[in-house]
């Protein structure tokens, strides 16, 4: 069982930055890192562990699957990630109906770690875009059963509002399709969702590289969730360091408040006092 941020944060390299940004809460649990990472697609379990440690993430996502009874692979994530060091967020990835997603969420909760679930109900194989109707239906069922639902959804304000209404503890609009690496395609909608919701908004899916993570956080959202950008980088550990800094950079830039932009130059040095 996760022992909490005070116990797990051994990373002091970010102390200056952390002093300028508060912790935040999802469903009553405190987090310091605004970067949430997946555990899928890594070339090896060792690279996965090294990369995740380099991100400084506290919350990590896992999937629920059948045990491989032929033991061809060592798939059990808990052999590699100590659940005391990380807050495990089980997902319902791969589910295409509300019923399936609810079934997977219940199985995940029975593992006994926490009440949280990353709800994902996919509507289309090619784009992996969410089925927002099924997502809403499953979110309501799960929230009524006491789950703390973090719902993956489209960058659609109305769905985001409805997900909040049915009791989700966080709403997670996509930056762009899962695994696409296209970055934030609609920063305007992401900003509006953040402005209108009371629960945390975590951008989930689509980040490709550090600048994408930074731009995402500059929209003022509470956090960002990524997997492929790290796992599919040529050097996942190095990219993990980059992402850690990018998320902090974007967050602090948002809090700092950017200068107004202008289409023409504005001199930085005085125009008075020039020689004749």
């Amino acid at each position, binding site marked *: 069982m996760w022992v909490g941020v005070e116990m797990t944060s051994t990373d002091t390299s970010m102390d200056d930055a952390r002093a300028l940004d508060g912790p935040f809460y999802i469903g009553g649990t405190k987090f310091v890192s605004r970067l949430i990472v*997946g555990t899928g697609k890594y070339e090896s379990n060792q690279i996965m562990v090294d990369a995740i440690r380099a991100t400084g993430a506290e919350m990590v996502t896992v999937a629920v699957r059948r045990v491989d*009874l032929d033991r061809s692979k060592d*798939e059990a994530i808990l052999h590699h990630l100590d659940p005391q060091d990380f807050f495990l967020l089980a997902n319902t990835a791969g589910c295409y109906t509300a019923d399936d997603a609810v079934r997977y969420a219940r199985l995940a909760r029975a593992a006994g770690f926490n009440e949280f679930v990353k709800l994902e109900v996919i509507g289309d194989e090619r784009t992996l875009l969410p089925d927002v109707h099924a997502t809403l239906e499953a979110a309501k069922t799960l929230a009524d059963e006491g789950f703390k639902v973090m719902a993956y959804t489209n960058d659609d304000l109305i769905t985001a509002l409805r997900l909040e209404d049915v009791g989700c503890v966080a709403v997670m609009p996509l930056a762009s399709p899962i695994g696409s690496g296209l970055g934030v395609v609609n920063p305007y909608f992401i900003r509006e969702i953040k402005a209108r919701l009371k629960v945390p908004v975590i951008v989930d899916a689509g980040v490709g590289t550090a600048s994408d993570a930074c731009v995402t956080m500059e929209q003022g959202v509470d956090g960002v969730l990524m997997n492929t950008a790290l796992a599919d980088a040529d050097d996942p550990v190095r990219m993990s360091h980059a992402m850690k800094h990018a998320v902090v950079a974007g967050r602090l830039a948002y809090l700092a408040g950017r200068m107004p932009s202008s289409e023409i130059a504005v001199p930085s040095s005085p125009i008075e006092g020039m020689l004749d």
Partner: protein
Amino acid sequence: MTPDTSIDIQLNGKRQSFGAGHTVTTLLEALELHPGMVVVELNREILDRENYDAIKVVQDDMIELVHFVGGG
């Protein structure tokens, strides 16, 4: 029920034979699975770990054994 009769169950989607008389606990032992590392669904119902000793595995049971794997 005699101990040497066998039963067929649907285990993780595959038809498999086991000796009769297994409980969920002894089935997991036979499969070399640590009860704390898996979740057991029996005929679409999730079992409490405390009940593993008491629940008998019988002919045509549908059992799913799941765990956490890497995912985003």
